């Protein structure tokens, strides 16, 4: 099996720093820098919900004070790991919502080591997560799957991208343990998400 590679986004104004981070992370193999932004506002404007991201590494200087305080709600996924990359002096308290704070002077091995620990914890906790309840959106999509709609048709009906539909479907299967369309249809009926006459 191909090892999972964590999708990383870097938000850092200095090109030479982001390029350095990218090469350190990708050399290691389990991290893949999918995009680099030079400011947080740029990231916020162009980032779409369907683009999955596991880790965001950002320079806190690119954030306003209220954004720092609210960082967990500003990123698209709640379980995204947020790393502050720090140069010079900083206020410890203002960075309390970050999962990891790394000094730019730190050796690259320690950055990788800390990230490995964080991503490992996250996969472990995902495995033992007892709350596998489907979200409202996932239930909506499940109903359309049960009705026999294709991913493209579901995307058009709910006005979202095909990519988003696929991501939701993956999560539905992960949560329920059911992979086939006919199996998901049974699940939808048993849980009374859709009436059999609507199929």
């Amino acid at each position, binding site marked *: 099996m191909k090892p999972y590679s964590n999708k990383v986004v870097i938000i850092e104004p200095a090109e030479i720093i982001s390029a350095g981070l990218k090469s350190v992370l990708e050399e290691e193999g389990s991290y893949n820098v999918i995009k680099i932004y030079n400011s947080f506002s740029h990231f916020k404007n162009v980032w779409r919900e369907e683009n999955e991201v596991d880790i965001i590494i950002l320079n806190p200087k690119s954030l306003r004070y209220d954004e720092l305080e609210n960082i967990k709600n500003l990123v698209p996924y709640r379980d995204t790991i947020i790393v502050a990359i720090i140069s010079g002096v900083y206020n410890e308290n203002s960075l309390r919502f970050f999962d990891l704070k790394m000094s730019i002077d730190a050796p690259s091995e320690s950055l990788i080591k800390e990230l490995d620990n964080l991503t490992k914890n996250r996969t472990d906790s995902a495995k033992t997560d007892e709350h596998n309840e489907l979200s409202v959106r996932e239930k909506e999509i499940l109903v359309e799957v049960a009705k026999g709609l294709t991913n493209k048709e579901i995307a058009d009906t709910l006005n979202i991208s095909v990519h988003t539909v696929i991501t939701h479907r993956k999560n539905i299967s992960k949560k329920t*343990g*059911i992979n086939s369309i006919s*199996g998901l249809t*049974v*699940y939808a*009926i*048993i849980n009374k998400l859709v009436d*059999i006459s609507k199929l």
Partner: protein
Amino acid sequence: MKRIKVYSPKTKVADIIFSKPTLLSVLERLNIKLGFGDSTIAQLCEEYNLSEVLFLDICNIYADPLYNPDVENLTGNDLNILLEYLRTSHKFYKTKYFPIIHNQIHKLLMGQDSSNEKILNKFYDDYDKELHTHFEYEEKILFPYVKSLSKGEKLSSFSISTYEENHDNIEDKLGDLKNIILKYLPSSYSQPLRLQLLENIFMLEEDILCHTRVEDKLLLPLIIKIEKQLK
């Protein structure tokens, strides 16, 4: 990486069954009668005129998911025995496991929520059809080809690459069924029936996985080897 063989010709047949009870079905399919006392695998194979290497390979494949047999020492005659083994295996699925599971599902669902009954019966009936199509393909297309190979002939109408394309996963939907019966059907359904059904699904799943491994790791490489010899 070459793995250590779990069983050897000197292993007692009774011991392999104690260590891996699923192997009972291998004995059944090779038509080996119980009551063999302390016979070793070597003695048993001699008595039943079976190839020791082939018998050990099958047992080791069942016991160890990562076991990779070496088909170098197997012959056209082994291919023939393997073919009989797989045929009997199919027969067992069709006449034993599938009808039992089918009946248990029908019985379990009867008299409760009619939507659940309808949709789950449909799920299983569709799966049942898929399985039969899968087996029928192997019996009508693959097995005659294998038979011809074992006799040293090669039917030109078939190529092993088309087989690999058509050889889809038949155990995936069993996973779905397990989840549905175990986790999602409300607790108002009969507990004893449900437990029996689950046990049978687990047994079938394990058996199909082993059966598939025998096909992928023994049958296919042996076919490819003999095809090369006949060229």
